[in-house]
């Protein structure tokens, strides 16, 4: 039982859970703002997955701030850089989405995705 509670499983559980919850909101919620929030949640899940790919058990942050730190004691820095990029991109997309939502609400007066169907077929 105890071998189930590993750091991998916790990270995976969090990340998959967030991804699935986010997607579930995207699929089933009618409010456009919630939909954007759902996307954000899912994105967070992916970011957790991404950043955790660099994790190596028992190692420290890759900063040579003190002398004597060896490279072999450090975790992989690349995923951290990647996730920084991913977060910023996610931020940009979310901000833009919200701007669009604000504008769309001004035009249509609704945030219900099943009603915002001026374009179909």
């Amino acid at each position, binding site marked *: 039982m105890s071998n189930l509670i590993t750091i991998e499983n916790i990270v995976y559980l969090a990340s998959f859970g967030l991804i699935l919850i986010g997607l579930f909101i995207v699929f089933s919620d009618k409010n456009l703002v919630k939909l954007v929030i759902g996307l954000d949640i899912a994105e967070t899940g992916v970011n957790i*997955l*991404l950043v955790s790919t660099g994790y190596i058990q028992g190692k420290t942050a890759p900063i040579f701030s003190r002398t004597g730190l060896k490279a072999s004691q450090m975790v992989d820095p690349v995923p951290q850089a990647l996730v920084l990029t991913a977060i910023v991109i996610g931020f*940009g997309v979310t901000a833009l*989405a919200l701007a*669009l939502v604000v504008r*769309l609400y001004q035009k*249509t007066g609704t945030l219900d995705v099943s009603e915002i169907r001026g*374009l179909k077929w």
Partner: protein
Amino acid sequence: MVNPILLIIIPLATAFFIPLLAIVWKNGSRYLALLAALANVLIGIKLLPYVLEKPIHVTIAGFKAPIGIDLLAGPLGIVFSLIISITGFLVLIYSIGYIRDESINKYYTLFLLLLTGSTGMVLTNDIFNLFVFFEILCISSYILVAYNRDEHGLEAAIKYLVLGSVGSLLFLIAIAIIYLKLGTLNMADISDKFDALGGSYRMMVVVLILSGLGVEAAIFPLNSWLPDAHSSAPSSISALLSGFVIEVALIVVMKLVYSVFHAMQVLNALAVVGVITLLVGEFAAFRQENIKRVLAYSSIGQVGLILLALSINSKAGISAAVLQIINHTASKSILFLVSGYFILKTGSYRYSDYSGIAKRMPVSSLLFVLAALSLIGVPPFLGFFSKLQIVMAAAARGSTFYVSLVSLVLLGTIVEGAYFLRIAQVLYFGRQQDTDSGWLETGNAAGIDMESVGNAPVSAVIPVLLLGIVVVFGFLFLTNLNGVTGSIAGEITRALSLASLF
């Protein structure tokens, strides 16, 4: 020799510079953007002969792959950046007259970033870098779709954004798996290590990337944003989106499938998906009344055809697909650009309201028809040759599977011909209605005064004419074109190996 990275840096720097320029010269961005695109065209032309012989590897920050990011300027990269910059340049000329509101500086900035994103996508040799450029491309197109800030544009943009984000989510998951399992992001490196990966991981990565990038590549059923976005964007932007954005995504995804993942197992499935995409597009266009929606659905159909050609798993197929991409870029850009002025002049999106507009806008209408004929695949236009090459490449595989797919393609062509020629006839001979007394010429229902419709301005006609030259006289250069497309096919099908790179 010029460094290919300039193809990305020039439009990017120009985009950053435009806000500064706007302070001193309000409309200067128009010409600056033109200059940037022109510079890219010239660099592309200069680089083309080099890369046809040997691909150029560009390291960034002095770190060799796979440590750093590197660009691979092979035939594919340079030819596609040429397609992008030439189309961009022509559409920029068109925009001079077409985009006339007060936020033009933002328009041109976004436009250049769209070019940056797509050029980056075809040049990069790093999968995460691909993701970044993919996002630049996507986000700039989200904004441009909503550029007019009307209800339809905004709605299309938010849908496009949500779907694009879901797609990039899947793409990121794939990147995470790749990094987890292989510890590298460089495509050549991945290509070397990928075959050692377990089957289920390979499958997961390939399917995730197909369904992630496939959103932008408009593969059925991931293309639901396309009809809305392409029909609601300003026509100049529709021309870009249909002209090269989906093709760039498609060619990149297929490049990954072939040369990085060696996932030949998915090709048959993709061929079937391609034909389904084609049929859905063509049949759905049949009953459309909004001209831009017709064109958007036709783009779906064309993407299906290109996907089928790319999935034939032969050099001939890929080469034909690239030729078809060139044809589609030119033709569909013409169609969108011309229909932009139809809409502007008549104020209506319904093509049945353009009754007899050919008398008022002769050049535009003629080019519209020529481009439509090329898309249908009528000799001697370029589209005929590309379609024939696709059909022959499929037939050359000799299996019943491909022959039956080809027959479905031909079925789609019939439908395509039917709806395009219907529009063409309305342009020239007016709307004809089936009444009891036979077909009669009737005026337009919207009460548009055709007399007041004038010709499109020179800035709109020139790019359309230039694109028209490609479509009409392209067949004269078929041998050269086939040489270029052939080397692209060679690049895609040759498994990249890190050892051979440096």
